[in-house]
């Protein structure tokens, strides 16, 4: 009796597959994008397959390169540039107690008078205690720069600080002339929360889940609110230091690694 129901059909097909159709592997190995069975295509009812996909009308979409020619075209990745020589220094935070600075200096940049007797240094300014942007930083640390392109990890004096980096010429008498400057960054707190007052806000939901994709995002209505009448006045739990998320064996599993 021929199979009738969908399950029976699938079961019949399954038997065919496991019955030794190893050659199918080779056939499928040559599958190309335009030749997939219709059952492999997503349902036409949903967004990705609904015919409004802007990819479809483009002329290049129906040309599919075969594996060898695609491999040849893509080639082996070339090494990334060692330097861009665009004169910059960038600061990143690694953790509350460590900054990462990298720099890329252009050769031939005009030097100030007397530069031959100065050292090129990376200067990390601690701006944590400043109240306004133009004030002179109270503290800084200097690190010798012996290469035009480089990086280093820099310990901070404490967590929750604000920092900026400069690379410039420093003379033995303390004079410093900046050559490049980074943006300002702030490290995370590590031990205790801030001391700001508790404020409350009510955010009213606006917009619809049926909004068109290209519609402007719905902005919520945000209003200050009084504290709930029975909200606890003290933190419900003691601030905790960051906890390690997962043992390395699990992290290796993550992302399929």
């Amino acid at each position, binding site marked *: 009796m021929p199979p009738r129901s969908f399950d029976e059909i*699938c079961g019949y*097909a399954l038997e065919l*597959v*496991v019955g030794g159709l190893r050659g*199918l592997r080779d056939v499928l190995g040559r599958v*190309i994008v335009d030749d997939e069975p219709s059952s492999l295509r*997503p*349902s036409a009812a*949903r967004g*990705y397959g609904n015919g409004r996909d*802007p990819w479809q009308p483009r002329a*290049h979409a129906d040309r599919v390169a075969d*594996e060898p*020619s695609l491999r040849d*075209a*893509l080639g082996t990745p*070339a*090494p*990334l540039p060692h330097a861009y020589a665009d004169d910059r220094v*960038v600061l*990143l*935070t690694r*953790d509350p107690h460590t900054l*990462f600075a*990298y720099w890329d200096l252009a050769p031939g940049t005009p030097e100030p008078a007397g530069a031959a007797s100065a050292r090129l240094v990376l200067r990390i300014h601690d701006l944590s205690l400043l109240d306004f942007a133009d004030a002179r930083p109270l503290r800084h640390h200097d690190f010798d720069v012996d290469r035009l392109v480089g990086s280093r*990890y820099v310990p901070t004096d404490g967590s929750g600080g604000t920092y900026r980096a400069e690379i410039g010429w420093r003379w033995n008498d303390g004079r410093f002339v900046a050559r490049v400057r980074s943006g300002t960054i*702030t490290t*995370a707190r590590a031990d205790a*929360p*801030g001391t*700001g007052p*508790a*404020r409350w*806000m*009510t*955010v009213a939901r606006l917009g*619809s889940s049926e909004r068109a*994709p290209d519609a402007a*995002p*719905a902005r919520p209505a*945000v209003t200050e609110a009084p504290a*709930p009448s*029975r*909200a606890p006045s003290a*933190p*419900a*739990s003691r*601030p905790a230091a*960051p*906890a*390690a*998320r*997962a043992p390395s064996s*699990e*992290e290796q*599993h*993550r*992302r*399929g*690694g």
Partner: protein
Amino acid sequence: MGDERGLIALVLHAHLPWVRHPEYPSFLEELWLFEAITETYLPLLDAFERLARDGVGAQVTLSLSPTLLAMLVDPLLRARYLRHLESRLELTERERHRLRNDPVFEPLAARQHAIFGEAWRRMNDPGGADLIGAFADLADAGVLHLMTTTATHGLLPLLAQSPAAVKAQIAVGVAEFHRAFERAPVGMWLPECGYYPGLDRELAEAGVRFVCLETHALTLAASPPVYGVYAPIYCPAGVAAFARDAEASAQVWSATTGYPADPAYRDFYRDIGFDLPHEYVRHYLPASGERAATGVKYHRIAGSGDRKEPYDPALARATAARHAADYARRCAETVDRVGAGFDRPPLITVPFDAELFGHWWHEGPLWIELLCRELGAGGAVRMIAPDAYLDAHPTNQVTEPNAGTWGAAGHHEVWLDQSNDWIYRHLHRDAERMTALARSHPEAEGLVRRALDQAARELLLAQASDWPFMISRGTTVGYATSRVTAHLGRFARLADALERDAVDEDWLHAVESADNLFPALDYRVYV
């Protein structure tokens, strides 16, 4: 509802990096997707569909990354997935024959065969094979609340040197979700739970309603959180932030003290790809011939070394049920302990990588289903999605969360160390270059438009947090390095060509064929 004293938000994040290699007939790393579909996504869908069918009032929140969505609908990868399943069906059929006289292991081989067979049937069913449609149906049924993440899982704090890079990652993540589900995401999963002060403004601009953060983002916030981590806060721009409850999370993910370590559960590491003679399994191993997992596993965790006991599905199921009940009880104890004096029910937020369930912890999807049934029975703790919580509790404390991630040690240590820090100078510079290109071509059309769009794709792909993660963890370092290098190299070649007004259409076509995700991407997201 009468005994309800607290709430729990179970948030799952499903993500895999974009791995698609049409330039080869098969590619080892594409197995990540195939294994995740078989072991995680399909079992989760089955569990959620049973919950919907039975009218269980579950509200699981699920993030589906744009790269994963793109791979789930890619015809080439879907065809290769079927080929993979057929290979496993053949292997398990051989196993059933080999073990035909073994009353203990033959049923285990038959069980594995059935798992692959069910996946094969579903992927050949025109209705069932539409996995994105299935997730959408479950959202319509109220079982799932769907959220998005950034375009390619870029770790935003380390991209913030270029504001346009952050904006593009967020905008494309939202747009791709719209394209897949024809609705707004309920929230945005921040890759690695990475947050920095000020990010909330970009999120609010994109219409993001809430995010999930690590515990210390709230406990070390700019002002002390009056509910601890047991209620969300609003960031200054109005985006809600829900923080992970570390204790409730560890019970699930800890490999040593959590549920997955129970001796009754299936062992992740024992696999016939390692156990059986090489000649026998060679045909099912990578083309290089190296030993690898096949997904066919017969043992449970009980035992040590090579002396593992046979897997007992009935025992594993009973254990999962016991653990689901135990988790519900522990949650009740937690809300009773922390909720005294609260004017609202305490909320326990537990975010996890979805792939933990099923791939790593074989019984994980079953445990989730049983937990949903346990919590849906009207006990002390009820499951709720973060957006539903905000509907019920629109007034919350406002403060600036502390910067950090959910990675080991809580900050950027995993994604920024001496093994992978070389990446960032290139990512930052190229984001600026992309912005300049977008601004200098405000209305590009034709070939130039295609080159600009593809340049944006390549830059986004290079920004994935997966690559520095793999490099620092020493897993697939060569592959991760080559991916960063390849995408940045393609970006540079496209940028050079655009700046010289000399785009090579044949080469552009090859790159478009390889990295064909985000077809609706508009390079002007970088303007």
